[in-house]
Structure formats: C-alpha cells, structure tokens
C-alpha cells in the first residue's frame, strides 16, 4: 500500500466568539500557515477536502464561502463532508492511496457562536422518535455518564480528575480556549457539571497530506498514516450499551492500533465521561500520554475538534515527541460515530 503522511498542521486560536470574522476570515490564516510550512501553493495541491456544518452557520452550502480561502479558481479538485474534518481527511487519504494525487489539503472549521450549539446538535437526531423531544447534547452525554457510574466504571471525582488533567495539559497549548485550573461548577445536566463539558467556541484547523517521497521532501519527520478506519453504532440510543464503544474498538483494530502499543493518544472526548469509554475501548495502557493538547475539554470547535486531534498527534511525531500515536475523532451523540488513525514517525 502507498505510504501517506501528514506533513503539516496548523490551527487557529479557539475563541468563544469571533464576531468580526466571517468563516473565510477565520479559516484563511490557518490555510496560509499550513501551506507556508511546506512551501506549497494552493495550485500545487492535488486534492482539497473540507468539513463543516450548515447547521452551525444557519445557512445552506456555507462551505462554498470558505472555498474562496483556498483559491478555488481556476477549478480545483475539491470535496466537502458535512462532518468533522477527520472524515474529510479520511476521504483525502483514500484519494492519495489511489495514486491519483500526491498531495492533499484538508481543513475544517466550526463557528458555533452565532447559534446555541446544544440546540443545533439536536437536529442530527432521529427525526421521528427523538428530535421532537429536543434532547440536547449535554443531556445525552449525561445519560451515558450515569450509565458508567451505575456500572461502577467511574464516579464524579474521577470525572473531575479527567477535567482537571485536560485543562492542566492545555496550559502548554497557546491555542486552547479553556486552560489551567477551572472549577467544576454546578450541574449542567446531572451527573455532568460544567467542568465535565466542553467549551463552546469557534476555530479552524488544517493539515497537508503527502505520499511517499513527496512527504519526505516536504517534512523532516512525516507522520505516516499506518491505518485509518471509521465505524458507527446502531442509530437508536436505547439499543446501545452506552458504557462501551464497539465501533471505536473495531475501527482501532482495522487501523492496526492493537498491533503494537502507542505512546500518545489524542482522543476526541468532548465530555469527561467519554474518555472513560474510549480508554476502555482502545485498551490504552496507563503509561500512554492522553490528550497532551488538552483535548476537546480545552477547545471543541464543532466539526474541527476531531481533525484537531489528528493534527495534534501528527505534530508530536513531527517534533519527535512521539513515535507511534493514536488519534480518534467522534461525531454524533454519545460517541455515535468513531474514527481512529494510527500515526508513526520513521525510526530514529
């Protein structure tokens, strides 16, 4: 199989509001940074793929606006997923594996500040039986958290510990929205407190993928994608065992995650309780460094937070801080859909 690597990664500062910026204003600096890292121009890129959601923008075909930021004229080879950018990266990876192109630019962004993200996310639920009840994203995560507590897999102090560790790690991340010591606060939806929930914010992320020698040419230590897979759970929440994530486990297995231990895991767990589920599904050992970036509890731009995890994992390989990293992205309520990528640096 053709070797494909992440050769560059850039992200915006993640902020509660960015009123003065349109989506393209927010995305463009990130695109320029990631291109500058490789010396590529947009016209050098073989394939461009983006992820975003019209429901955040409140406007149809909103992604076409940010396409201006990559110089879409003259015509470029381009695609878009109405999902987190991690899935856009999956599409780009497949495109590179076909041999059709040697480089790809993948970006995604979310501007949650214009709307109420808890309400917006209800619109992705089953429209017949669930969406008419408007259960918001925090409520559904809280049902999962209670199931974990009942099963004896965690408790509120343990969840608070995950929150504290994540925000402490984020202190070293200049882009993070919430960092340092943050009080757990009151219950949002019991058993989840404010500190167990991700911040609502705006942000953007971009990565560049390249194949084989092109990757070596563009990056001193490419983050090779050894495997990537994504899977989904049954649609109805009441059918699932909310304390487990078989789709994550299967995706990880297909991505080769269990072949050798990883040293780093960037997990897309917007809620503290979801880290408990993911650690179990991914069989992570205690010595694995989990979410050194702070994870989604420190910055959770919807549609970008998953690709951010992959980018953060790749950046640690670029910097020589990791040799084999796992990156995970999720979408939908209670870890409905899960993507796992395994990244490696060349032996040193």
């Amino acid at each position: 199989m053709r070797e494909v690597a992440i050769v560059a990664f850039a992200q915006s500062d993640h902020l509660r509001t960015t009123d003065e910026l349109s989506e393209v204003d927010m995305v463009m600096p990130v695109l320029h940074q990631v291109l500058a890292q490789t010396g590529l121009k947009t016209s050098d890129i073989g394939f461009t793929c983006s992820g975003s959601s019209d429901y955040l923008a409140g406007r149809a075909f909103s992604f076409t606006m940010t396409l201006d930021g990559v110089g879409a004229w003259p015509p470029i080879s381009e695609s878009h997923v109405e999902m987190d950018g991690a899935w856009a990266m999956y599409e780009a990876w497949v495109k590179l594996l076909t041999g059709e192109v040697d480089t790809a630019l993948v970006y995604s962004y979310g501007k949650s500040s214009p709307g109420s993200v808890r309400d917006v996310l209800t619109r992705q639920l089953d429209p017949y039986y669930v969406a008419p009840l408007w259960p918001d994203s925090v409520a559904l995560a809280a049902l999962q958290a209670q199931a974990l507590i009942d099963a004896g897999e965690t408790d509120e102090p343990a969840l608070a510990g995950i929150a504290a560790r994540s925000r402490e790690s984020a202190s070293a991340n200049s882009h993070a929205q919430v960092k340092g010591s943050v009080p757990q606060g009151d219950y949002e939806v019991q058993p989840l407190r404010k500190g167990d929930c991700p911040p609502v914010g705006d942000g953007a992320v971009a990565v560049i993928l390249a194949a084989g020698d092109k990757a070596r040419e563009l990056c001193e230590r490419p983050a090779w994608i050894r495997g990537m897979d994504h899977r989904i759970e049954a649609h109805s929440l009441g059918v699932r065992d909310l304390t487990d994530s078989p789709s994550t486990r299967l995706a990880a297995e297909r991505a080769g995650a269990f072949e050798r231990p990883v040293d780093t895991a960037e997990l897309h767990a917007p809620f503290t309780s979801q880290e408990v589920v993911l650690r179990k599904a991914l069989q992570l050992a205690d010595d694995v460094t989990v979410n050194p970036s702070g994870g989604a509890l420190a910055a959770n731009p919807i549609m970008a937070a998953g690709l951010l995890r992959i980018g953060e994992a790749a950046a640690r390989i670029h910097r020589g801080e990791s040799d084999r990293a796992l990156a995970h992205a999720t979408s939908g309520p209670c870890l409905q859909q899960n993507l796992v990528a395994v990244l490696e640096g060349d032996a040193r």
Partner: protein
Amino acid sequence: MPEVLKAPLVVEFPFTRSLGPVQSAFLTGLRERTVLGVKTTDGLVMVPPVEYDPVTADELRDLVEVEPTGTVTTWAWNPEPRRGQPLDTPFAWVLVKLDGADTGLLHALDAAGPDAVTTGMRVRVRWAAERTGAITDIACFEPYEGAAAHTEPTAHDGQFDDAVSGIVAAARLDYVYSPGRAQTAYINALADRRTVGERCPSCRKVYVPPRGACPTCGVATTDRVEVGPAGTVTTFCIVNVKAKNLDIELPYVYAHIALDGADLALHGRIAGIPYDQVRMGLRVEPVWTEGGRYPDHYRPTGEPDADYDTYKELV
C-alpha cells in the same frame, strides 16, 4: 475597526416526514394508548420499533404490543429545561425499558427532584391529553409503584383506523448572524447609496459584493474600492413566475450587472424599459427608493450600449 453588523436570524421549517409501515403503526398506536414494538431476527423486542434490524439489516415487520410500564436503565437530571423539551419544569431524561421490551425508549420523567430518581426505578407512561400520532403523545413518564410485568408481549397486527402516515416535525433554530468585516462595510456603504468592493492585493481584481477573500488567489481582500454607480448588463433572464409576497408585475427582468470598476457582476432587477428591450451591453444605474438600504432596481442610463469586448470577461 467599525462595529460589525449583527442581527437575529431565525431558521424555521416544518419538516413533513412520511412514515413507513412500522413507524406508522407505532405512532398511530401511541395515539390509541397502545405501545408497539418490533421483533428482531434474534427475537429481541425493540421499542421504539425500527424497520430494519440494526445487526442483520433484515426487514422487520413482526409487531408486538408491550406494557406502558417499565424500568429506568439510565437517567440524567435536567435542572433547566430548554425550549421544545417535553416538560417546562425540571425533569429527568430517562431511557426506559418498557415491560416486554429489550431496548430503551428515550423520554422525560416527571419527578420531584434528582433524589427521587434512580436507575432501576419503575415508571409508567403519562399520556398527553391530546394525541395526534407522534412521540409527544407520550407527555412524559411518571413514577409507578407496580412491579415488572413478566408477561410475554402479544402479537399485534399494527392495524388501526385512520392510521397516521406522516408527521410534521417543526424545527426552529435561533442565531445571531454577523456578515463579517467585508460585508458589513458593503452593507453600511449601501445605506449611504454607495457601492464598495474590495481589491485583491495579488491579482488586482475588484470583488462586489466583497466576501473578504479573493477566490482566485486565496488571500484576504482588504483594499476598499468604490465602484459604479452605473454599470453594464452582462447577461439577463426574463422572469415569468410570481414569487410569494413579491409585489412586482410580471414579466420582469433579472440581470447580472457589472458596475463600473468591478471585476465581478452582481444581481439586480432591471426596470424603466420594456422587458423585451433589455439586452446585453445595456448601460444601467441604480434606483433607490425612499428609506431603502439597497437599490430597488436598475434603470437604463440612456448611454450607448457598452462594447462586448469591455465586459466579455464578466459574462
């Protein structure tokens, strides 16, 4: 930086959804205070029922009736109900395994407080006073003292008089929309009866209306340029369909107009000339109505038509 414009934006739509045979039976059943499930290939009873087995993808049609009583499998206390949720007083979200069912139904539980809710507690359906064939026909669940009924679910033919075949799922999302820096400047200038675009620092093209980026070069356009007021019709169409609430006589002409100094044509209505005399190259100018924040339409200036070569790049 001048203040960026902001305005409330409400996106609202009554989605009309048709139901398949299983969903129709389930929702009609709720209207009749009857809870139906469906048997999967493995013999499990799914409530709410689906049309295809989540494991095998087999088509499921084997309906059964289950009890309106059940057991909470997990819960979450919601101290501040949000718009559209089943109760407007604090309540618990619950997954309930109804007696006879093997899967959980998501709904609300009306309880005194979080201390009154536990996993494993017994609950029963509280029916809505007015039922239409929708999940909201279950108003909520309420605590119930009775023990679990261990009766086997009974087969049900799913037939009801006057079965519902669809639902209307009203969706409403509230936003505060901001058009960003570039379009704010454009809209503010329009209110002063001026049209401003932005020039790309790389290719020098002037975009109107500006979106803040050059789609050719992928860089920010920050150099503001006043264009117009007159322009040239680059192409047009004759509209014969009346849009709802539109107070314009048919037929009318809608055109692409390249304002003088702009490198992108914008849209506008052409009036002040019979519709069948509008042509490519026609020179036009904006007409503002009293208090209008944008041109109502464009009318001929009376100048000779523009030469095709002057606007062919913009067609």
